[in-house]
């Protein structure tokens, strides 16, 4: 009798624990070709770049009436894309998971020491959506008026100037390394995990230069705290049409991909052609909507809707470029 009394709480404890585990395990798997319960996997936490992009896609698609469902955003932030890619790989053939990916995933695949990590070429890339132009910003009172001025100063002070940015394998550092090699200069790269401290490092004068997207800088430029001194792609930026591109300024850009930072949609490996067509139907309508046009203009992005063979071509040439840049990165370390 005594024994059963002590066992009772134990039994209760274990049954509750069992219930918890079984609830967690309730994750139904359905593998029809037409998605009915879509979730978007992203590589950043709430409020991060890809998270915002995915939420904007859903919001705009609903506004433009090309989508009547709600696609929840699922965050897999570990390893800057690695966890998200692995997640897609684990859900092979499942039409209900897609990912808003960035070109960063290509380079993380190469820089990762982990040989078992999934790379982008294992996934089904459905479409490229947008190209995010990269700009060079300096403090408003900086003596540099063009990126060429910065290069000239970097030649005089090798290893002294500071560029501020994120993780060491991010595209802004990769592009900067190639430019340093092309121009025979060198400068430092200061890493901050969050975006806020990067801008304050510029404003404080701890760093002299930063490469980033239009929206990283536009408010500070409007407030007269930062200025834009160059554009990394072959076209000028629409919001800052007076700023010349690095190519126009005579900076040798060979080895730096023109679309340095792009965003697209990828699905797990092995999804059926009907699934791909279903998604492409939605996204092709999405990118034609006026709401999308407006969003692209606000972000300073160009719509780059590429699918099929053209996409394969683009992905493989980008991959080749990035492979080169990553070798450069490993040499420097």
């Amino acid at each position, binding site marked *: 009798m005594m024994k059963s009394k002590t066992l009772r*709480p134990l039994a209760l404890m274990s049954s*509750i624990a069992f219930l918890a585990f079984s609830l967690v395990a309730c994750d139904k798997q359905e593998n029809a070709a037409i998605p009915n319960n879509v979730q978007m996997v992203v590589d950043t936490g709430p*409020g991060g770049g890809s998270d*915002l992009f995915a939420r904007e896609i859903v919001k705009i698609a609903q506004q433009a009436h090309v989508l009547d469902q709600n696609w929840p955003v699922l965050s897999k932030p570990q390893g800057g894309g690695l*966890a998200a890619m692995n997640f897609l790989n684990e859900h092979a053939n499942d039409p209900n998971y897609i990912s808003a990916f960035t070109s960063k995933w290509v380079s993380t695949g190469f820089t990762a*020491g982990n040989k078992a990590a999934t790379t982008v070429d294992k996934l089904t890339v459905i479409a490229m959506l947008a190209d995010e132009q990269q700009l060079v910003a300096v403090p408003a009172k900086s003596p540099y008026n063009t990126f060429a001025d910065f290069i000239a100063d970097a030649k005089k002070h090798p290893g002294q100037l500071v560029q501020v940015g994120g993780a060491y394998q991010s595209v802004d550092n990769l592009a900067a390394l190639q430019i340093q090699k092309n121009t025979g200069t060198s400068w430092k790269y200061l890493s901050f995990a969050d975006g806020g401290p990067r801008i304050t490092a510029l404003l404080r004068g701890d760093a002299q230069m930063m490469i980033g997207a239009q929206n990283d800088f536009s408010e500070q430029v409007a407030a007269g705290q930062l200025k834009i001194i160059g554009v990394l792609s072959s076209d000028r930026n629409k919001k800052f049409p007076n700023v010349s591109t690095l190519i126009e300024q005579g900076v040798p850009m060979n080895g730096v991909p023109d679309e340095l930072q792009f965003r697209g949609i990828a699905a797990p490996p092995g999804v059926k052609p009907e699934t791909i067509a279903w998604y492409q139907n939605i996204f092709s309508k999405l990118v034609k909507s006026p709401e999308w046009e407006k969003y692209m203009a606000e972000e300073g992005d160009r719509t780059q809707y590429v699918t099929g063979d053209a996409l394969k071509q683009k992905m493989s040439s980008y991959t080749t470029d990035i492979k080169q840049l990553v070798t450069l990165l490993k040499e420097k370390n």
Partner: protein
Amino acid sequence: MSVLYNLMDGFEGALTLMNLMWIIAGAVLGTLIGILPGLGNPAATLAILLPLTLRLPPATGLIMMAGIYHGAKFAGATTAILLNIPTETSSVVLCYDGHELAKQGRAGAAMGMSAISGFIASTIGVIGLTFAAPLAAKIAIDFGPPEFAMLMVFGLLLVVSMAGKSPIKGLISMLFGLLVACVGVDIFTGSERFTFGSINLYDGIEFLILTLGLFAISEVLINTGKKMKEAKPMDTPKRFRDYLPTWDDLRRSRLAILLGSIVGFFIGALPGGGSTIASFVSYALVKNTSKHPEKFGTGAIEGVAGPEAANNSESGGTMIPLLSLGLPGSASTTVMLAALLLYGIQPGPLLFTSHPEIVWPVIASLYLGTIVLLVLNLPMIPVWVQILRIPYWLLYPIILLLAVVGAYSVRGSIFDVWLLMGFSAFGYMMRRLEIPAAPMLMAFVLGPEAESSIRQSLMLSNNRLSIFIERPISAGIVAAILLLIAFAVYSRTKHRRRAMSAY
């Protein structure tokens, strides 16, 4: 005076029936999140609610989000005091004195004090936000890597100094914390540290996993060794008046609340500052300026009032970099930034002039939110304290359940649940060896920030250490560190001498 006019306009905008309703909804929801770790942290909840928020008008949506953020902070103290489980990084410090008070049957006083000091401090914080935002934003920009490095070194020194009876055990615990904090991919070089090739460890270990393992589950484990029938639940007061702090408590805590509010506001205003360091620095300041530092850690009411004040005035401060620079200072404000962006509003230096119709109602709603929270929390204290009456055979399974669900919900990863089990066993071992867990948790939170800011500083200075004393603010913090050490040594030797001469 234009600030006052703007604020009046803000109140006019905030005081609609719908906004008031959303303030209350946000505060209630935030309170629930703060109390049940299984519901996830405030940042995650804000993210889940983003789609709902976006259906509301911008000011109303932000008002609700601010309510949740505030409410979770207010309530984070509850679990730390009652159950010794800090569900938020900023409530770790409350375990030192808050839970001790609960053990002495004064849980109500501790919770009441945390609500009252939280109310006063968040009001001070919001007043600071209203009037001192431009000034604080300027100081925030001057706070670079060397300044942060010294602030973090300061914090880590405090961790050791607060270890309790055995400084060596405190040091051991702190080193474990620093070690666990190293796990992940280093952003400076991209190299992996202690990941054992697992992608699950690439971004390091989540705070909630560590705290649930070290505090919640290991507490359950250590008590399973006792006979449950013999173990009596803690005392709870019988009269309502005993649920509130006494006048003497309030009198003793005056200075602590004031100090905490000021420290919290300024640390909150730094992008990347955070409430953890705010609550911690405030605890140390209050302890070292107290006439009875030896009472801290054994249930001193000032040890609850100071850090809670800092934790709550920080939320006023943390809105400064968000609203005036467009730079979020914490995970929760990052989600609020996301909401602003999704509304099509770009926060930045121009937000105050370009969208006053959003900024001022939100600031006004913060004033209202703190009042709502006080009204909501004080009468609820006796209800929460009843948790202590729940018999252990029922309470412990519930804690286990909430801990497992909570650990899973952070990243939706079953790997984290296994990690939780591992840290629970580790926490059990530490308890058996009487190594305190709080220094490990504090070092885990402060370590990464300390490491990166020291490395950033040395990179900027080409490895010259003089950078830490060349810059005025950094030099000021170094001076403050030295002063505090000197003061602590002086007051302790004086105390010891007095004790010696008494024999």
